């Protein structure tokens, strides 16, 4: 990737400066919260970026409470299940949107856009009542269902863009080579769409993982409370103690899976993109 303008050292220097500013701006809060999580209770308010006294006590504390560990299990489970189902459904829907002409196609696209733009807060009360009536309140499915609903439009949009990139002639060629439509999809289209599927999976996973609104409103106990919601229930040793240290430690811990997820799939994405070229 070349720089847009100039090849001289000064142009590179300018870009380096701009990039540094952006990176520092974005990462400073992360650094700050990481620093807080390593500070002892006595030094937490001292305003130093680098802790004067290092401690792992905060991490030990959160993993000793069933509140956090249980929430972590809920978060991972709910996010993974939602992502899998949403991506599976969206792959099929996006393929149809990109390749097939069927009545109501425009309506489908319109409705999914509508869902994506719908203010979620206005759904919280009705969902609360519906889920209580159906017995879904405070269960895993109670969160998985709304997550899938809101993740689908995003997933369909991203995936159909990827499907449109795949030359239609490849599918025709597969048919001519003797493949059934299902075989053509499985052996030719799906492998080529893999980078798109992984990208979408990351986006959907992050969406489910980060959600706070549904997590706090549709759960009431450890049975299904996810980490973002559980964080707000943290308390210090006494009522009057501020749980800053433990909250920071928990925040750092829940960032880790996202980073791992992105790093893991990013390699797949890059590998897929570089080998997938049709035209040289």
């Amino acid at each position, binding site marked *: 990737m070349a720089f847009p303008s100039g090849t001289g050292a000064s142009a590179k220097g300018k870009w380096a400066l701009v990039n540094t500013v952006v990176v520092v701006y974005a990462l400073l809060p992360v650094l700050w919260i990481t620093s807080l999580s390593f500070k002892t209770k006595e030094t937490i308010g001292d305003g130093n970026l680098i802790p004067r006294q290092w401690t792992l006590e905060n991490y030990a504390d959160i993993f000793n409470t069933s509140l956090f560990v249980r929430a972590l299990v809920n978060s991972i489970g709910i996010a993974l299940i939602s992502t899998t189902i949403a991506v599976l459904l969206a792959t099929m829907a996006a393929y149809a949107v990109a390749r097939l002409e069927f009545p109501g196609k425009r309506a489908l696209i319109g409705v999914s856009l509508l869902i994506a733009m719908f203010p979620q807060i206005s759904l919280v009360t009705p969902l609360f009542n519906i889920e209580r009536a159906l017995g879904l309140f405070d269960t895993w499915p109670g969160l998985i269902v709304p997550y899938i609903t809101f993740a689908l439009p995003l997933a369909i949009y991203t995936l159909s863009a990827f499907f449109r990139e795949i*030359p239609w*002639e*490849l599918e*025709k*060629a*597969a*048919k*001519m*080579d*003797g*493949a*059934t439509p299902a*075989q053509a999809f499985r*052996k*030719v289209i799906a*492998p*080529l769409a893999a980078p798109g599927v992984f990208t979408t999976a990351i986006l959907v996973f992050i969406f489910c993982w980060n959600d706070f609104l549904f997590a706090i409103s549709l759960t009431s106990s450890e049975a299904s409370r996810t980490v973002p919601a559980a964080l707000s229930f943290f308390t210090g040793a006494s009522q009057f103690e501020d749980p800053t240290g433990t909250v920071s430690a928990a925040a750092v811990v829940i960032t880790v899976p996202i980073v791992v997820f992105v790093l893991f799939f990013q390699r797949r994405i890059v590998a897929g993109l570089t*080998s*997938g*070229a*049709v*035209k*040289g």
Partner: protein
Amino acid sequence: MAEIVLDAVSKRYPDGALAVSEVNLTVADGEFVILVGPSGCGKSTTLNMVAGLEDITSGELRIDGARMNERAPKDRDIAMVFQSYALYPHMTVRENMAFPLRLAKVDDKVVRTKVEEAAEVLDLVEHLDRRPANLSGGQRQRVAMGRAIVRSPKAFLMDEPLSNLDAKLRGQMRTALSRLQNRLATTTVYVTHDQTEAMTLGDRIVVLQAGIVQQIGAPQELYDRPANLFVAGFIGSPSMNFLPVTVEANRLHTPIGEVPLTARLRRLLADADAPRELIAGIRPEHFEDAALVEEHVREEGAVFTNTVEVLESLGSEKYAHFALEGEGARSQQLTDLASVTGSADVPTGGTSLLVTRLSSATDAQEKQRMDIWFDPDRFLVFDPDSGRNLTADA
């Protein structure tokens, strides 16, 4: 090995547009048939209908006598080579070529020998483990061919397979393709917009325009006896000259002088009950520098004198362009032709232009007058309204 029959096959799109209208064509076993025409003439649609990638609106498609209209592409046992080659980018060359066999659940050992055989024929052996992205255009084209030939299908369909190659490579691949088809003797339907490719490759050519078959015939037949103005103008490069002519008594008034009607022409025109205003067509190679024509031959033909406007030398021959007085030939078919080929190729309206192909021995000079000899018996005469060739049955 198969005979392909198109029996009044038509294609109408849901929006009502008629893409292909009642095509009747029988491709004999082992024959190489070319569908040629300008873009949008329905040639690719026809091919896709044979392949099964598009539904047939009406009519019947038979391969080896069996009706194919409702069969899926995979059940028709025909292979297709696409313009973009459509190689699977995530597979190696070997896997690309093996794909049809793997789908047919052929034994692993057989797959390997068949792929290697095909690679041998197409000179791809050292590229078998590379991916399509790392191959050159010509190599990709050969892989696409390889994928088609490995499973020995009943027929090959080719959709402009050479149009993505550069001119020189295209010429080489054309010869290679011809040789391959001769060797395999597999029925082949080939689509192209390039009339040179059509002339050089095909046993027979089908000229299509606006979804309607204009003429079916051997290349030389199409060249010598085009059925109408469209075919006459489309086949041949540089294209045929069209001149507005009037019949008067026993003479033909043309922008290049009055010529006597030969007995043959007179009889043909009388038989066809032709109008007096006609269009005459004559190919550039039927002219010659009068100075180079022997005396006794010269007397059989006619001579006109005009100023050379542009002279192009190709080494082996020279093209002399003349601007003639008066309006050019007008006909609906010529207008159609001009709009699909880019009007530069075909003179219509305005002053009429004349292209002549002369021997390289001529001393013709630009901007100088010269005598040009031609044989009036070479004139093809067309009806301006229907575009029909009135001299076709000679």
